[in-house]
């Protein structure tokens, strides 16, 4: 016999899941996205509130109410403090690390919930499906936790995470496979004799796996890794849903999983690489022969000349890359853009999907610098217009504007690029002529309509602004 309360609680849980779906749906436009976030918060409050009510009703704690309630309230308080501290203190430039860190925390939470659930359960309640789900939760969660930790460390540029494993790639793949097989064996063994301590072994293997999988990946492949770990944190939550038998976890977890998978596939497509080559290739090797002859016709320019060019332009497009984030030049860019607009020209920003270190990285930085989202144009959106652009200012981007991608036989062949070379004039702001992540020369820098402005991104943009003011 199902009690009425149970039904009400289940419906409320379902409502929370629906709120999450609606919340993400509202994310389809910047105007409604804030509301969408509130829907998510409301759904979460609802779900957590219902869980506390269910706990209060539980017969097993009637005699000893203080301990469980104390633990729940204390833990919620501590978690809230840490979470609030993180999100209020962190700078926008540190956003990739923070997102990676949150993924990891989510993964670890899944690991611990599954652990607590398995250890607390009566031995005869540990059915095969619960143990399989627990094993999945432990493995995926631990991989997410450790992988995100490594990713966050790399993004924070800690030296410890820059080290590469002294193991050849083939051996590494073999070891990874062996660890996966060991995890599957652990699950079978747990089903066999109900020894849940093997779960700990799965978690340890998962941590090692997370480390060995993420360590070789870096640089421009980071957006893929972060999106994938985001997906894993959801899948871990979903697996935990099977352990504790709660559909709301399964629904929400798989939503997050789907979101991460979509972002991962978008990022891979924007780099024209398969997911497997990102995960197991360990970065693009610079095997392509660099041809110094390419740069024979490079023209230098000065900030004053660029200011003059900009003064005559009707349509200016900024092309930001990771270099803009490194130089923290977004505010300088936004100031310059406003000056140009005040002179009657239109300003837009062409943003490549993999510019930066996480999906949407440039957009967030520019939004912080007060750039309106109507000015942020995507690759498909702006590419047909480049031949009408008077000046394209490339700031800290390299491979995503390399015309070599249209040719056969280069490491970036087939990768969709911004057609910056079609603009009437191109200004590239860069420290040197050094190659980008793909390790190949960029003929754009030597093109007839391109001039190079060497120097730090922020300083260069500020120099242009000063020069423009003096005109």
């Amino acid at each position, binding site marked *: 016999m199902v009690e009425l309360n149970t039904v009400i609680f289940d419906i409320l849980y379902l409502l929370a899941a629906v709120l999450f779906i609606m919340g993400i749906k509202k994310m389809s436009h910047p105007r409604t996205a804030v509301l969408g976030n509130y829907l998510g918060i409301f759904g979460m409050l609802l779900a957590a509130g219902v869980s506390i009510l269910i706990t209060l009703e539980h017969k097993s704690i009637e005699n000893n109410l203080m301990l469980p309630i104390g633990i729940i309230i204390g833990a919620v308080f501590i978690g809230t403090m840490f979470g609030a501290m993180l999100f209020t203190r962190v700078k926008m430039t540190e956003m990739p690390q923070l997102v990676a860190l949150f993924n990891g925390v989510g993964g670890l939470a899944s690991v611990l*919930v599954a652990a607590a659930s398995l250890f607390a359960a009566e031995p005869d309640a540990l059915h095969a499906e619960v143990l399989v789900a627990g094993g999945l939760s432990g493995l995926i969660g631990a991989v997410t936790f450790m992988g995100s930790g490594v990713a966050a460390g790399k993004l924070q540029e800690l030296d410890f995470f820059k080290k590469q494993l002294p193991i050849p790639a083939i051996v590494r793949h073999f070891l990874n496979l062996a660890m996966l097989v060991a995890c599957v064996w652990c699950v079978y063994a747990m089903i066999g004799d109900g020894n849940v301590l093997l779960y700990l072994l799965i978690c340890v293997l998962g941590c090692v796996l997370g480390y060995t999988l993420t360590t070789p990946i870096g640089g421009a492949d980071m957006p893929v890794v972060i999106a994938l770990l985001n997906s894993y944190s959801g899948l871990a939550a979903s697996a935990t849903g099977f352990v504790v038998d709660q559909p709301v976890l399964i629904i929400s977890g798989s939503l997050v999983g789907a979101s991460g998978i979509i972002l991962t596939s978008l990022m891979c497509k924007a780099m024209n690489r398969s997911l497997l080559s990102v995960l197991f290739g360990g970065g693009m090797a610079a095997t392509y022969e660099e041809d110094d002859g390419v740069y024979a016709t490079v023209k230098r320019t000065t900030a004053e000349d660029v200011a003059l060019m900009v003064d005559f332009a009707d349509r200016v497009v900024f092309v930001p890359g990771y270099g803009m984030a490194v130089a923290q030049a977004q505010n300088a860019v936004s100031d310059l853009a406003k000056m140009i607009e005040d002179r009657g020209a239109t300003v837009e920003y062409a943003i490549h999907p993999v510019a930066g270190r996480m999906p949407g990285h440039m957009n967030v930085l520019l939004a912080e610098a007060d750039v309106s989202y109507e000015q942020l144009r995507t690759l498909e959106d702006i590419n047909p217009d480049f031949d009408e652009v008077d000046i394209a200012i490339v700031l800290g981007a390299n491979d995503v504007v390399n015309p070599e991608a249209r040719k056969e036989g280069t490491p970036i062949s087939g990768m969709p690029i911004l057609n910056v070379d079609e603009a009437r004039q191109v200004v590239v702001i860069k420290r040197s002529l050094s190659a980008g992540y793909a390790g190949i020369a960029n003929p754009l820098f030597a093109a007839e309509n391109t001039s190079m402005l060497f120097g730090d991104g922020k300083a260069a943009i500020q120099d242009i602004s000063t020069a423009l003011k003096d005109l």
Partner: protein
Amino acid sequence: MKNPQKTIWVKWLGFGVMLWAGILVAQENLDTTTETTTESATESAAPIDVPESAPAEKVEAHESEAVEPTDEELAATSDEATSGFDLDRYEALMAGIAVFVVSVFVGFEVITKVPQTLHTPLMSGSNAISGITIVGAILVVADCMKTDKKIALFLAGIAIALAMVNVVGGFGVTHRMLSMFSSKKKKKAA
């Protein structure tokens, strides 16, 4: 669907998971003789309502595609294990897996419409949603009390704190980012 490859990939993943889970349950039930298990009634109405929350009919089309092999699978495994098969558990598991598969498709439909500009807030927001593990963490506390497992209780406490970091931090940072996205018209009005 814009991206057929993606769909097929997930379909096979779902199919694979179902196959494995089905075989495992069947095996275990062949080994052990009939056992009566008291199912927690929490499953109840939830899974059936999910497809209704799907925004487009398209989802339902995909869903039927995805579920079809499941039914064959279901029939195959139940033939294999007619003796001593625990139907309640089997149904609960299959319902859970159906919820999972359908939610993935709903997720695809909803998330493909999110523009590139909002991809970072989407990630941090969905990350906050994955903090839903807090539900599991809180519910486990009562189980721990029942069986009086101190270690499990301790783990559950840490899990609640971590999930809460995820929830508060995730939603908070998403809000911070989203409130920075502004349009020109709004600025002129201000």
